[in-house]
């Protein structure tokens, strides 16, 4: 087999892997598929928000303030006469940006620290883990509130604070994965063959924990979205004129909710549906990528071996059918 054909085979396998994953998602996880579709819709809405929103997010129609749903304002208006539909649509942007960016930061930090802590071990591990213990003992929301009151509210502050504080806490999970992996014979043989620490981490450890990392990322996203909403609700998140779903439920809006209960309904509904969808999608992804993480009752499906090639597990009869 020439190099070119080999390359093509690998390429083909890579493509078929993602296609196969989507097929299995649709076939085996109907609820996960619904979640994935809603997540996708949310992403698209966030990207093209200015195109589909009927009005600008801060356009004031003061004559129509506190109105219920009508043909002019599909979801009604708030106390300043801003169109709620437009604000919910633009609010999706905040949730998507915060959810994705802070989860990315968090996952990078927890992977970096987790691998380091597990691989170096010894005193370094002991001290770092006490630090993680400490971080986990301080309620996240309290810590975030204080940090944001220090650095001032704003989108990037919220993303960074959420990412860093959550990333330190999640270190624990990556660490335990790497510790389990370290015991494997092939790591030992790589060490005795003279592989450098960097080679072992990048070629043997990271590819093997890629699936859990992806799962961790997908599980962190809804958590971040909820945290941002909670912070904005308390007034320590995204500052007011920006439409954040959490912020839309708080502050001056609360005083008008008895007059116009629609104001209390839509942002929360958008938030809940989003968190529900991303959770369902994440759950399905976890079951498909790594059944071991299900806590004992998982079916043993296929394991991702390394660098995009899939080796089917002989113990799994359903693995052969695909």
């Amino acid at each position, binding site marked *: 087999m020439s190099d070119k054909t080999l390359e093509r085979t690998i390429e083909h396998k890579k493509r078929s892997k993602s296609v196969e994953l989507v097929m299995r998602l649709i076939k085996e996880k109907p609820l996960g598929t619904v979640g994935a579709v809603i997540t996708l819709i949310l992403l698209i809405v966030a990207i093209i928000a200015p195109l589909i929103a009927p009005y600008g997010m801060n356009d004031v129609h003061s004559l129509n303030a506190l109105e219920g749903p009508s043909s002019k304002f599909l979801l009604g208006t708030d106390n300043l006469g801003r169109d709620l539909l437009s604000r919910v649509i633009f609010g999706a942007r905040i949730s998507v940006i915060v959810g994705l960016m802070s989860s990315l930061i968090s996952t990078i930090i927890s992977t970096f620290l987790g691998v380091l802590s597990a691989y170096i071990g010894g005193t370094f591990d002991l001290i770092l883990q006490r630090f993680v*213990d*400490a*971080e986990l*003992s301080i309620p996240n929301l309290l810590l975030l509130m*204080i940090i944001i009151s220090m650095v001032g509210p704003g989108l990037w502050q919220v993303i960074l604070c959420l990412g860093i504080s959550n990333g330190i806490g999640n270190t624990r999970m990556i660490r335990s994965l790497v510790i389990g992996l370290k015991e494997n014979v092939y790591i030992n043989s790589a060490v005795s063959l003279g592989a450098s620490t960097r080679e072992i981490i990048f070629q043997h450890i990271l590819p093997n924990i890629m699936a859990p990392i992806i799962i961790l990322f997908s599980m962190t996203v809804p958590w971040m979205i909820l945290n941002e909403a909670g912070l904005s609700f308390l007034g320590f998140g995204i500052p007011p004129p920006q439409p954040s779903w*959490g912020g839309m439920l708080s502050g001056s809006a609360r005083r008008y909710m008895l007059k116009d209960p629609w104001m209390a309904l839509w942002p929360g509904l958008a938030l809940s549906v989003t968190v529900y969808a991303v959770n369902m999608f994440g759950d399905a992804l976890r079951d498909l990528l790594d059944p071991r993480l299900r806590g004992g009752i998982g079916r043993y499906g296929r394991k991702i071996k390394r660098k995009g090639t899939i080796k089917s597990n002989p113990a799994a009869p359903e693995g052969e059918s695909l």
Partner: protein
Amino acid sequence: MRAYIIRRLLLTIPTVFFVSLIIFFVIRAIPGSIIDKMEAEFGGGYGVTKIDIAGIKHQLGLDVPIYTQYGRWVTKIVLHGDLGTSLWKGTPVINDIKQRWPVTFELGILALLVTQIIAIPVGVYSALRQDNIGDYIARSFAIFCIAVPSFWLATLVIVYPSIWWGYTPPIMYVPFGVNPIGNLKMFILPAVVLGMSGAGGNMRLMRTMMLEVLRQDYIRTAWSKGLKERVVVMRHALKNALIPVVTMIGYQLPVLVGGAVIIENIFNLPGMGRLLTDATTSRDYPIVTAVVLIISVVLVFINLLTDLSYGFLDPRIHYR
């Protein structure tokens, strides 16, 4: 066992040290900014022409190097139990905390109770009738609990009953000792809302654990002895399935406290969470530091207790 307890106790010391370090440096890390912010927000207008910067700096202990500040702060707490004094009221912080903690404590206990009352029976039922229609409903309910943020649920619970039936939850706080029924009336809604947010995860854990235990050999033995379902489930399966659920409580508490801060604000409960948000908004940093420190240290010790209780609950575990 004793060696494990001693080791675990010793490991708590660096954890508490790091907790104090994190809280201290989060507030002091940005030099000068506290003062600048205070001056920007409170100086100038509102009749306050010029705030006493040097005075506040001295009061906060900001006029000495940072390690000396940390040293002083810790010695004061450890040796004299002095958590500092409020910047604006001038009273010792400990007085505020003494007054506020029972509210948060009661809310937390009631919320935990609600969580377990929902999670354990529904989780067990869901596992016993796996893939049944009841199981699907229960699991959807669990996801609902996870997906609906407590502050939205609380908002709905306040807004809609008031519009439909003219019902508003009581907003005047009455201590339990003075009027137990009035006190419970006030706490029941917040506790249910807060408890539901934790119920989803617990329910799912309970179901998973129960499914795992139900597949064990000793359960099959129990069935083949001809025991009734109730006995097999209650006496043999539930006991072992509950162990991880108990430890889960330890890990859930920080999230519960975060939720309590939000809930106390919505339902107007004068607890530690309210104290903290008020202090953070008014930049009363001695209160902020003290409240977060106390909550976190308490959580460190509760975690220690849950870790140790593992050994007593599960005799299969041997500590080395």
